[in-house]
């Protein structure tokens, strides 16, 4: 039955991809769905793309292992959209850029900054894709007994076919559908699980160390570092930003983002309940020689309910998990491929296709070569830290401060990229998941801001800064000279 669930989700994704093929004809269609997507569809698509395996499976697992302190993870992943809404959404859409490197080029008028931004988009995208593919392998092995490489290969293949089939238009439809699928797939089983728990006499949790926030200094540092990385990292995730260009104008971008906040808030009510039920019924998953906390969501129906109903619910959850693997991976692939296609290759649809294969192929190769036992949400947390330490300062200073210069931005991107990137490599290699290196946000983010400001103060501004500010901040309805910058040929 689990296999059937995986097959159904895969088939539905592919069908939507081919449906999109008939709709997308020009290059512009291919990348950004011709900007003709309604706010609710767009918001659902952002939600669908954003809710990855880390949210669907990972949060419950980390909460099971670490208790209330890990609830900050979903809080930060939602709160990040609030920060994105107030600081970035409308100006970013108004910049007219397709990608983050486009924005860097438009604002700073520098190819060097553009190239650095491209490099970072690819790195962050791969860092985010890698755990998705690894977790897909673990999950498929768990539910069907397949070899551990099969899940990652399956997800990569479906993503390539889907993206090549229709580009962004199909992805938008698929993503919007996937949000609601994931919400249903996590929500419906939870209702049954809670009823079973009630029938069971509503057993409570006695472990106060797990129930109450940790108050040690280390834990306080980790919590604040996590808050900083998640709240500020969301705005720099490549698959999140590419969605903003599908809004018709700045005000619509704002409306879409506000709607995303609601959709995510609704979804993130669910995983913590799974974490708590897991603590009662499946706490053995967090202990022992090889803890497998990512499995808790899929294990619970069998343990609490069992029988045919338990199997059906587990199949539904498996379908949701695969929707999560596919949607996030597609979104990341489209944005990474867009950047590789534009900046490494010559641009155009053919480059985009070659770039797509490269965008998934590299993380797949890594996932197969380096089997990691780090939980999926931990790895994704590292991608947030890297994004918060590089793109957040670039966007916030670029949008709100005329003084940002190309040299300042470049110096900041290099500093943040090296420091946070180094911390990521150290964490992945040593598998140490606590301490100031594993949670680098608290020192790398302020440092990057500082470097950008100090270097900018001593260098000269791009010549068209004033015009660019008009472009970023004035509503589209007013007829003004906004400069003639266009995204490069694609």
């Amino acid at each position: 039955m689990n296999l059937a669930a995986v097959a159904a989700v895969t088939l539905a994704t592919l069908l939507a991809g081919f449906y999109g093929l008939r709709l997308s004809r020009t290059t512009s269609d291919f990348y950004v769905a011709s900007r003709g997507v309604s706010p609710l569809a767009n918001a659902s698509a952002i939600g669908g793309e954003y809710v990855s395996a880390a949210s669907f499976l990972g949060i419950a697992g980390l909460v099971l292992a670490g208790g209330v302190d890990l609830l900050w993870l979903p809080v930060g992943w939602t709160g990040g959209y609030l920060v994105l809404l107030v600081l970035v959404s409308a100006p970013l859409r108004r910049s007219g850029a397709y990608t983050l490197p486009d924005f860097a080029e438009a604002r700073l008028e520098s190819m060097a900054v553009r190239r650095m931004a491209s490099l970072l988009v690819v790195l962050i995208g791969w860092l985010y894709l890698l755990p998705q593919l690894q977790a897909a392998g673990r999950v498929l092995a768990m539910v069907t007994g397949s070899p551990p490489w099969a899940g990652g290969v399956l997800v990569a293949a479906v993503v390539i076919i889907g993206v090549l089939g229709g580009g962004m238009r199909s992805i938008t439809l698929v993503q919007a559908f996937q949000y609601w699928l994931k919400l249903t797939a996590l929500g419906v089983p939870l209702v049954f699980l809670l009823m079973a728990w009630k029938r069971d006499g509503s057993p409570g949790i006695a472990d106060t160390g797990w129930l109450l926030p940790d108050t040690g200094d280390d834990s306080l540092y980790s919590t604040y570092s996590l808050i900083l990385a998640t709240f500020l990292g969301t705005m720099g995730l490549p698959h999140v930003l590419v969605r903003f260009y599908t809004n018709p104008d700045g005000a619509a971008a704002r409306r879409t983002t506000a709607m995303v906040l609601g959709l995510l808030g609704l979804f993130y009510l669910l995983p913590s309940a799974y974490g708590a039920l897991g603590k009662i019924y499946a706490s053995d998953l967090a202990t022992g020689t090889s803890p497998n906390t990512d499995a808790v969501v899929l294990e619970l129906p069998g343990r609490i309910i069992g029988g045919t109903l338990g199997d059906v619910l587990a199949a539904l959850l498996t379908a949701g998990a695969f929707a999560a693997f596919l949607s996030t991976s597609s979104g990341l692939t489209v944005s990474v491929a867009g950047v590789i296609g534009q900046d490494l290759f010559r641009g155009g649809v053919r480059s985009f296709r070659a770039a797509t294969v490269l965008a998934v192929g590299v993380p797949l190769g890594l996932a197969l070569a380096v089997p990691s036992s780090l939980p999926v949400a931990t790895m994704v947390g590292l991608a947030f830290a890297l994004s918060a330490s590089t793109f957040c300062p670039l966007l916030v200073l670029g949008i709100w401060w005329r003084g940002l210069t190309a040299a300042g931005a470049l110096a900041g991107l290099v500093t943040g990229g090296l420091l946070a990137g180094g911390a990521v490599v150290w964490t992945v290699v040593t598998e140490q998941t606590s301490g100031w290196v594993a949670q680098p946000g608290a020192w790398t983010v302020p440092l990057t801001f500082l470097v950008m400001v100090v270097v900018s103060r001593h260098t000269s501004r791009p010549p068209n800064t004033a015009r660019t500010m008009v472009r970023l901040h004035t509503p589209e309805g007013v007829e003004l000279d906004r400069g003639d910058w266009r995204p490069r040929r694609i």
Partner: protein
Amino acid sequence: MTERRIAVTSPRTGAARRRPGGGSKAREIDEQTRLGEVYMDALIRSQLKLSLSVCVVLVTFVGGLPLVFALADPVRESEVFGVPLPWLLLAVVVYPVFGALGWWYRRQAERTERDFVDMVERR
């Protein structure tokens, strides 16, 4: 396939399309006069103030929680309807608060923009 440029912003980017005789304030902005810069500064400053006020609420409300939990044991250990207060706050209450803040921000930001449009289009 031939390479071509595709316009992706609103076509209304050029001053050339402006109605004859209209929008002297728009001209000030286009020509980047002192006055034009004052108009732009006012817009950016009021939007930034609004954004930062949301951020301040966020830092106080969200940023304060770990500290409160660490310093005030009564808060950390209290229960509401049998659920520990930290759970209730972090698993449920924060989400509607985020939503409300976002909704309020969007309304205010659109109001600021309407004011700017009115100001520019007034003769």
